[in-house]
């Protein structure tokens, strides 16, 4: 908002920005925005005009304003002005209060942010300043773990080479650390305040924009120019990590920062009920116009046929001498009268109900995650009922289904399996163990073996089994982990991938403690003895190699190659003598894999000196080569990594979040299709699919699509479809059945046109082809017939595309759930986006509509809250439309008896108050509190969810039923009094068939009828319902008597002409008899209908309600799927989750502290001079994560 305003003030938008360091006067000329941010929309003065302007932009409000204006024309005005203005003012003031509250909180959070302190270099001194006072060109000092106040040019830092690490979670959601490096010229400034104060470089750079990955600019200082790139910039919103301090110069402040430029508007989502409601409202307007036209024609006819002769008593009005013109005026008059068909309170009530439901979500303790003190949060208050209609769930894997915590679970060493016992351990314990694991002390004793309960491994270690030792040594040596001692002197590992962390930590726990490394050495404490290995070569990981190796020389002088990698790859490299062990290990691997574990094969090779020397020389040559350098290097790697001796295999568990399996089982029982969209490899994805029961062995077939061209993909898809149809001969055409899904009966399985369960696995490449227009339908058709779809290796964009695909073609409600920045696009494009507030920052949560702490809460969110919201909203709408039709159509019938003169049936005040006072609260209470079945039963019986998916509770048919019901009631409401009052005299002989008595009788009947109806509709009578229902009726009579009282008439004789009427009418027995008759006549058919429906076609919820009523404690018997994880021949093809480039960083020693030995090797020197390594590093998306912040990286 503020950005826009600023740009309006300076219409010549910035083309480039010139900033001079430490020179506020200079920078002032450019009028750059300062660091104060405004997310608030209004201030005290502008609130009223801006807010009103915004509100009247809404169609409904504008419509009512239009009505109000119509009412001011005396010829048309059939209602007095207050009947519209009172509800309108009420609605507008309620919205205004809500907007004001929202804005108040924005002001508060703005203030909080603006008042943060930072150290700014002013007048050659470091001074504490509020963030909002920071100006462009200032130099500020940041300390570790501080938020960055503005977009800075990094000048110097505490780390060598001007490096600093930032966490960008707030910006892009990635928690892994990113490296930034200052220019060498500026990093020399260090922490020297005086020289920093003298720094007067001028930066010329791009204008503010929202591109996070891009920056271009030039620093001119001391007569030389330095190019600036994104690597030199620290953005606002980042947090400084692992860096004691750094200095930076402010380039962009406040609204110009990339963070603020990025906080774009989120897409406005509407629920399907909303859309339906809008359609219906348009229909109703059409209906209203039709009624208006009918009545206008009626009026024209009446005026010409009859009214013309009635002139003795009924004058011609000004300018209405023609009956046609009179009809025209009547049309508008009736538009005003009948406007209550779409009452203004509808929209407000809907909002209030949704708000209530949102609060219930926020308040639910069963969705509160104590471990993180995180309740569920409804970030959008307008989508609740859609939660009850979900048909497709698109789920991210890492961090959503899994915890992204790797635990070393099992291993197979030399043909023997260790760690069997662990299977039975509960998951809860594991979490706490993980936490303890964080502060492992670097002591020699392996005191923390808690999470590996198999003592046989300990025994083997103590017995000194050389293979076991070698195995653990390998784990301690062959990795890219960096170690570091934190302030407490404890050993802390910075790991690149959590898998590796798990392995190194495991080795550490068994006494092989990786202590430290230099570019040339690795120090390991082996069972208490420090041993330093010489690191001879580092054969880094790559996606093709799927393995990594180190070549080390141990103190005894032996040269060994240690290798770990994907079993499929490594097994090909084994020495033939390993044949027996291989088959044994292979069996173990299968076993591990079927338990859903991620496996690695471990092997080593003894090298002799001469061979290695030769190889090393060839490697040096290759590295120095200018042509085919990479090919030659990889050839050499291949050359040395052969004839390996198998040691065994490791199995790391990618731990599922708590309750994932149960949740997925329940959700699929609720007929929700779950698609997993993950960036993981196919094998990992399938494994996790099996682990969390999305894929089961009970499935008839799992189709795997891995085609590389569009044609291949299409063929694979078609083949799969043929198989599918082949097994379902009775099934003729899939999509026809699916498209007519809505008409299908509720009974379970009817829409399972395909008998049997199928799953589809498709990878990113194939998906890219499949999403092309002509293959799209094949994919969709197949995918929708499958119970589960797993998409692996998909990009964030593809995730969104898949969601869009289903949204576009299936007309189904979709939900996307994820936790990372890569899920944001999917979360934004699905109907409902859910952010798991996991470990990957807040990006997903910020983009989401609902934030949950754990995946398992999804079950409650959908099956309980979503279902209730949907149920309540539908009931509310049904009743609301019914009520207003009953209320308004009476005017239509009356028109035929009052010469189509737009005479109202009721007192004007009654029309004013009916919707907002007499009948609003009971229906609101129902809309907020009603429950058909308890939450426990909703959870236990997922089939209850189905009416929502099939849109059964409120659809066009239902709407027509409600309307018919309303029309029937209006008929009863009008014609019973009509017949009864015809030429009637009162008990005292006085005439009582007067207009006012008629109005009071009808109004009273209406209030009673709709109250009885709401009482009938309310199935959950809390205290609030009682108070509201009885209270509304009491309020009606109270207000009626007041308004018809002498005192009120005495003050406003014009406005309250009904004086004495209530008392007179209500004291007549006759009137009560009429009211009773109307009530019974309008409610009886409804009761009959409902009773018969419950007898003949009881819905599931009816049955369960009866169960509940009968207080049967036993749970409804639903066939719960046995949660078996049968073992099969599934094979984990898991390999590293590494990225390349870390080996280079390690061997270069760049990222090591100064206290580490000075680099000497030639290799290192070469790299030192070659500054490209850091770009290289950054290109390869470094994922440095340190355990001391309790963060782990995503794969």
């Amino acid at each position, binding site marked *: 908002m503020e950005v826009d305003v600023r740009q309006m003030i300076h219409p010549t938008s910035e083309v480039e920005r010139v900033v001079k360091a430490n020179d506020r006067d200079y920078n002032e000329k450019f009028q750059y925005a300062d660091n104060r*941010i405004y997310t608030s929309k209004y201030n005290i003065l502008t609130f009223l005009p801006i807010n009103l302007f915004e509100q009247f932009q809404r169609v409904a409000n504008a419509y009512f304003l239009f009505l109000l204006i119509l009412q001011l024309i005396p010829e048309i005005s059939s209602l007095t002005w207050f009947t519209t203005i009172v509800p309108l003012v009420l609605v507008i003031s309620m919205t205004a209060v809500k907007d004001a509250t929202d804005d108040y909180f924005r002001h*508060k*959070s703005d203030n909080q942010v603006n008042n943060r302190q930072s150290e700014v270099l002013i007048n050659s001194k470091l001074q504490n300043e509020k963030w909002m006072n920071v100006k462009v060109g200032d130099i500020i000092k940041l300390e570790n773990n501080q938020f960055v106040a503005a977009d800075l040019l990094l000048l110097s830092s505490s780390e060598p080479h001007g490096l600093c690490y930032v966490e960008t979670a707030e910006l892009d959601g990635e928690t892994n650390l990113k490296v930034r490096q200052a220019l060498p010229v500026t990093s020399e400034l260090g922490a020297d305040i005086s020289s920093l104060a003298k720094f007067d470089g001028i930066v010329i750079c791009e204008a503010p924009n929202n591109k996070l990955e891009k920056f271009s600019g030039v620093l001119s200082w001391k007569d030389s120019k330095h190019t600036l790139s994104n690597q030199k910039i620290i953005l606002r919103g980042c947090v400084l990590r692992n860096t004691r301090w750094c200095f930076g110069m402010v380039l962009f402040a406040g609204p110009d920062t990339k963070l603020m430029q990025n*906080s774009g508007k989120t897409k406005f989502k509407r629920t399907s009920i909303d859309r339906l409601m809008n359609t219906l409202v348009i229909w109703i307007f059409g209906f209203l116009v039709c009624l208006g036209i009918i009545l206008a024609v009626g009026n024209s006819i009446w005026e010409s046929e*009859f009214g013309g*002769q009635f002139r*003795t*008593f*009924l*004058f011609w*009005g*000004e300018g209405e001498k023609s009956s046609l013109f009179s009809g025209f005026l009547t049309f508008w008059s009736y538009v005003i009268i009948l406007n209550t068909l779409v009452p203004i309170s509808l929209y407000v009530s809907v909002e209030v109900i949704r708000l209530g439901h949102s609060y219930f979500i926020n*308040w639910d*303790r069963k969705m*509160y995650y104590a471990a993180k*003190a*995180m309740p569920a949060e409804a970030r959008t208050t307008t989508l609740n009922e859609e939660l009850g209609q979900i048909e497709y769930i698109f789920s991210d894997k890492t961090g959503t289904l899994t915890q992204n915590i790797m635990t070393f679970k099992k291993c197979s060493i030399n043909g023997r399996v260790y760690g069997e016992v662990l299977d039975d351990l509960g998951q809860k314990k594991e979490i706490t163990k993980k936490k303890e694991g964080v502060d492992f002390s670097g002591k020699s004793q392996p005191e923390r073996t808690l999470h590996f309960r198999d003592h046989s491994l300990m025994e083997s270690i103590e017995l000194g089994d050389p293979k076991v030792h070698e195995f653990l040594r390998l784990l301690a040596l062959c990795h890219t982990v960096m170690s570091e001692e934190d302030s407490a002197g404890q050993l802390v590992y910075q790991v690149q991938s959590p898998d590796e962390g798990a392995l190194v930590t495991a080795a550490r726990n068994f006494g092989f403690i990786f202590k430290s490394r230099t570019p040339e050495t690795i120090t390991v404490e082996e069972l208490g003895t420090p041993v330093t290995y010489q690191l001879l070569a580092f054969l880094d990981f790559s996606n093709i190699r799927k393995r990594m190796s180190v070549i080390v020389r141990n103190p005894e002088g032996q040269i060994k190659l240690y290798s770990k990698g994907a079993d499929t790859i490594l097994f090909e490299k084994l020495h033939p003598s390993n044949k027996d062990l291989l088959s044994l290990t292979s069996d173990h691997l299968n076993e591990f894999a079927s338990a859903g574990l991620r496996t690695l094969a471990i092997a080593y090779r003894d090298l002799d000196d001469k061979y290695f020397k030769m190889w090393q020389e060839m490697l040096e040559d290759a590295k120095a080569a200018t042509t085919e350098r990479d090919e030659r290097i990889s050839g050499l790697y291949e050359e040395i990594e052969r004839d390996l001796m198998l040691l065994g295999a490791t199995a790391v568990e990618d731990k599922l979040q708590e309750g994932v399996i149960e949740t997925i089982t329940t959700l699929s029982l609720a007929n929700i299709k779950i698609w997993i969209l993950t960036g993981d490899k196919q094998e990992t994805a399938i494994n996790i699919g099996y682990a969390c029961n999305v894929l089961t062995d009970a499935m008839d077939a799992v189709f795997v699509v891995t085609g590389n061209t569009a044609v291949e993909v299409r063929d694979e898809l078609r083949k799969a479809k043929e198989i599918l149809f082949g097994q379902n001969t009775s099934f003729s055409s899939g999509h026809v059945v699916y498209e007519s899904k809505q008409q299908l009966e509720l009974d379970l399985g009817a829409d399972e046109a395909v008998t049997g369960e199928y799953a589809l696995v498709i990878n990113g490449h194939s998906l890219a082809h499949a999403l092309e227009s002509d293959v799209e339908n094949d994919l969709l058709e197949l995918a929708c017939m499958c119970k589960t779809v797993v998409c692996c290796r998909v990009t964030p964009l593809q995730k969104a595309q898949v969601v869009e695909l289903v949204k576009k073609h299936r007309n189904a409600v979709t939900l996307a759930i994820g936790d990372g920045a890569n899920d944001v696009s999917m979360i934004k494009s699905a109907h409902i986006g859910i952010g798991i507030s996991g470990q990957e920052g*807040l990006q997903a949560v910020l983009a989401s509509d609902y934030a949950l702490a754990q995946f398992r809460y999804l079950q409650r969110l959908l099956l309980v809250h979503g279902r209730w919201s949907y149920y309540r909203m539908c009931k509310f709408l049904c009743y609301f439309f019914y009520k207003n039709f009953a209320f308004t159509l009476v005017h239509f019938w009356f028109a035929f*008896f*009052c010469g189509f003169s737009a*005479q*109202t049936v009721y007192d004007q005040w009654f029309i004013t108050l009916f919707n907002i006072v007499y009948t609003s609260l009971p229906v609101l209470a129902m809309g907020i*509190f009603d*429950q058909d079945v308890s939450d426990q039963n909703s959870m236990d019986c997922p089939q209850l969810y189905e009416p929502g998916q099939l849109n059964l509770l409120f659809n066009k048919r239902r709407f027509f039923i409600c309307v018919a019901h309303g029309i029937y009631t209006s008929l009863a409401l009008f014609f019973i009094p009509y017949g*009864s009052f*015809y*030429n*009637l*005299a*009162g*008990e005292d002989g006085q*005439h*009582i*068939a*007067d207009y006012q*008595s008629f109005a009071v009788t009808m109004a009273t009947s209406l209030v009673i009828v709709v109250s009885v109806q709401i009482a009938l509709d309310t*199935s*959950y*009578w*809390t205290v609030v319902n009682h108070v509201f229902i009885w209270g509304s009726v009491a309020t009606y009579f109270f207000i009626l008597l007041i308004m018809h009282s*002498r005192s009120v*008439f005495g003050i406003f*004789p014009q406005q309250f*002409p009904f*004086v*004495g009427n209530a008392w007179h009418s209500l004291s007549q*027995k006759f009137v009560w*008899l009429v009211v009773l008759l109307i009530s019974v*006549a309008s409610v*009886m058919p409804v009761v*009959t209908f409902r*009773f*018969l429906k419950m*007898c*003949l076609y*009881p819905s599931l919820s009816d*049955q369960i*309600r009866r169960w509940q*009523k*009968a207080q049967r404690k036993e749970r409804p018997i639903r066939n719960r799927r046995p949660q078996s994880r049968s073992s099969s021949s599934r094979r984990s093809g898991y390999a590293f989750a590494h990225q390349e480039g870390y080996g280079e960083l390690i061997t270069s020693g760049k990222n090591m502290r100064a206290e580490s030995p000075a680099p000497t090797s030639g290799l290192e020197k070469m790299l030192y001079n070659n500054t490209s390594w850091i770009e290289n590093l950054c290109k390869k998306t470094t994922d440095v994560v340190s355990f001391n912040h309790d963060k782990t990286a995503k794969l």
Partner: protein
Amino acid sequence: MTWSVSARGAHQPDNTAFTQQRLPAWQPLLSAGITLPLFFCAGLAFIGLGLGLFYSSNGIKELEYDYTGNPGTGNCSLCATEGQGRSPPPNCSCAWHFSLPELLPGPVYLYYELSNFYQNNRRYGVSRDDAQLSGLASALRHPANECAPYQLSATGLPIAPCGAIANSLFNDSFTLWYQRRPGERYVEVPLDRTAIAWWTDYHVKFRNPPLVNGSLKLAFSGTAPPPNWHRPVYELSPDPNNTGFINQDFVVWMRTAALPTFRKLYARIRQGNYSAGLPRGAYFVNITYNYPVRAFGGHKLIIFSNISWMGGKNPFLGIAYLVVGSLCILMGFVMLVVYIRYQDQDDDDNDDE
């Protein structure tokens, strides 16, 4: 913005029945144990009520006479043809002769009925000024705009009472004559014209403006009567309690009818010998025929009626009760049959209550 998210709602939600949606609640069900008896009881009660209403309505005696004066319908047609058009009708009177073979039990009420008269037309209905009628002096001089075109007279004086309703005041009058035996002299039956208006109308809603020097005429000075009226409002009746805005005929007329066919009370017969009703004998009603209705196809009727415990004659309500009551019982039977048939199939459902 972004920073406040984590801080917000970091507390555990309260564990109250309200926040956890566990409020104790009554959860009624449409069970057979409640619904069926309810239907049968309601049906029986309604039939009973309906019968009562029907018979008491039938017991009411009504005598009515259409004196509109359409050609060939008695002696009022003469007046009708004469009084046609906008010109002030002449003082024409006609009579309705009838005889009662037996006593018409009292109290007997005399109504006039107009049909096809749209007192409920909006433009007609709003054409009044309740403030003026409630005696506000300011409103007397400045009638509300709704009264237009009967707001100001041709000479610019404010009209009191203003508006179309007042202007169209029903101005026929009736006298009732009784002849006990043929050949005897007709005696006038006293018509009680007081208290025909609602108490609140007469005492609260309609008030004369404050008297000036004790004179109502002076209070109304500077106003004009409605164009159709022959006499000013303060001369509607010689009785000071029945003239001006509180003239009972006027008050009755001003309580506009709901439907285009309506009756208004003209008088009660309850005085002297007639307190028990109208005895048998011959009667005639002398009608002063002033009010034109034939132009718009309306009818004027005069009705003698007595009333029952629930008011005047109206068979509709009794019949409606009978119909609804029978329907209740019918529905009850349908539901019973369905319930019995399907209860066997569904063991779980039948033991609700």
